């Protein structure tokens, strides 16, 4: 084995290692081409390295912020196709300011286009978080909040679903693998029409996966408990009373109208189970942030006129 061969092998190994996360696909392609051209790696080695490199993007975690934003926009459009928007501009301003304030203390303060909230004009009780930072709260849910701290904890729960990418995790892995494979060929703008059609079809199926979980079936229970736990932490960091989450959940216990209806109960675990899990986490927080009359007053002012 010549010195050049050994060095080539080292380079090839490093490139293969790079395929696991350090180096890009096309960098590897170019690298293997160069090494192949000078006879440092043989064609088989080059193919192996390239195949490894194609594994670079293959899970929900490899979805870019921009892609998450575009997926979220369409999920938001699907939610908005089902509910009318509440027209109160002052309430919208208040809720968006509150969400932005809570987001600062979340696990993901910065997101592609920021966090945005709309109120859905329905008495159904529900809250939905589309990927990319778009949050929807129903008027029915707002009416159950006695104070700002309670609403802040609900927003912290929704922001946590987004931080932890629970929506994106609903996308079937095979769709992502197929999408990334097509995208690996060329940029969308230069793609052959049949690949554009395939990619659009996969996009639509991915939206279907998310919408099914978010709107119809509900996330896996473990994601709801995880979002509650994160909300308690985020709420406390912001100095909101974390018991806000249990104050809201208490209003849902034994509520037959909500239980028999659409929305929250169809998509969330039982409120009693959530309260008992949240209570345990809250008991460990010291000092426990307390309610503040001034915050409750501004919440009531923003809610005035919500019927």
């Amino acid at each position, binding site marked *: 084995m010549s010195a050049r061969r050994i060095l080539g092998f080292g380079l090839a190994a490093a490139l293969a290692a*790079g395929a696991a996360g350090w180096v890009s696909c096309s960098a590897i392609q170019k690298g293997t081409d160069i090494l192949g051209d000078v006879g440092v790696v043989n064609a088989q080695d080059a193919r192996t390295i390239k195949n490894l490199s194609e594994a670079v993007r293959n899970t929900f975690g490899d979805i870019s912020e921009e892609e998450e934003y575009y997926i979220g926009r369409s999920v938001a459009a699907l939610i908005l196709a089902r509910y009318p928007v509440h027209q109160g501009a002052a309430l919208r301003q208040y809720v968006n300011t509150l969400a932005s304030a809570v987001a600062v203390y979340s696990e993901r303060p910065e997101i592609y286009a920021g966090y945005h909230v709309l109120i859905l004009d329905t008495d159904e009780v529900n809250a939905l978080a589309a990927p990319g930072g778009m949050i929807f709260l129903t008027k029915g849910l707002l009416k159950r909040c006695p104070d700002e701290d309670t609403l802040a904890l609900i927003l912290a729960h929704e922001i946590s679903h987004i931080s932890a990418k629970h929506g994106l995790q609903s996308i079937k892995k095979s769709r992502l693998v197929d999408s990334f494979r097509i995208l*690996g060929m060329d940029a969308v703008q230069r793609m052959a029409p049949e690949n554009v059609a395939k990619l659009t079809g996969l996009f639509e199926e991915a939206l279907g996966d998310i919408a099914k979980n978010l709107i119809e079936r509900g996330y896996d229970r473990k994601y709801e408990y995880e979002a509650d736990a994160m909300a308690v932490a985020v709420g406390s960091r912001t100095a909101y009373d974390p018991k806000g989450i249990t104050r809201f959940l208490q209003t849902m216990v034994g509520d037959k109208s909500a239980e028999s209806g659409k929305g929250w109960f169809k998509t969330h675990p039982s409120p009693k189970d959530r309260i008992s899990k949240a209570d345990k986490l809250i008991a460990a927080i010291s000092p426990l942030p307390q309610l503040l009359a001034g915050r409750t007053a*501004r919440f009531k002012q923003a809610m005035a006129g919500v019927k």
Partner: protein
Amino acid sequence: MKKFRRPLAVVGAGLLLALVALAADTLIIKVQTTALRKTPQFFAPVVANLKLGDKLTKVAEQSGWYQVRTASGLPGWIHGSAVEVSRINLMASNQPMKTQATATEAALAGKGFNKSVEANYRAKHAEISFVWVDRMLQIKIAQAAIQEFLRAGRLGDFRGAK
């Protein structure tokens, strides 16, 4: 010749390690817009405004924040959620190249679910309106308004304030 092999391989491996280390020091902005701050806090003074794709050199890390330098040499801090570690530099010393090294770099190269894909989807589904999606994304809350909201509510960085 035999003596020559090992040192050459070691030098090669060393060079690669150095390049990997260099690559790990470059951060790329993954959100549309953000700010470089004087200290690692959201309400610290803004040193510069940054946008998607801007590159920064990492200097240090501290509880979720990166101390960085901009391309023009400005020092400051950026939150970890606004950046990803670039993987593009390893082979870029010889020639510039567009790659899909990271998700953001792929997106910047026009590879991904993007505006074009949304346009194709919308062409197929004229019944789905994006009017309120666009309107909700236009809602802007100024940093000063968030700060005032926190201050008045004695929240976050302003907890315990009078």
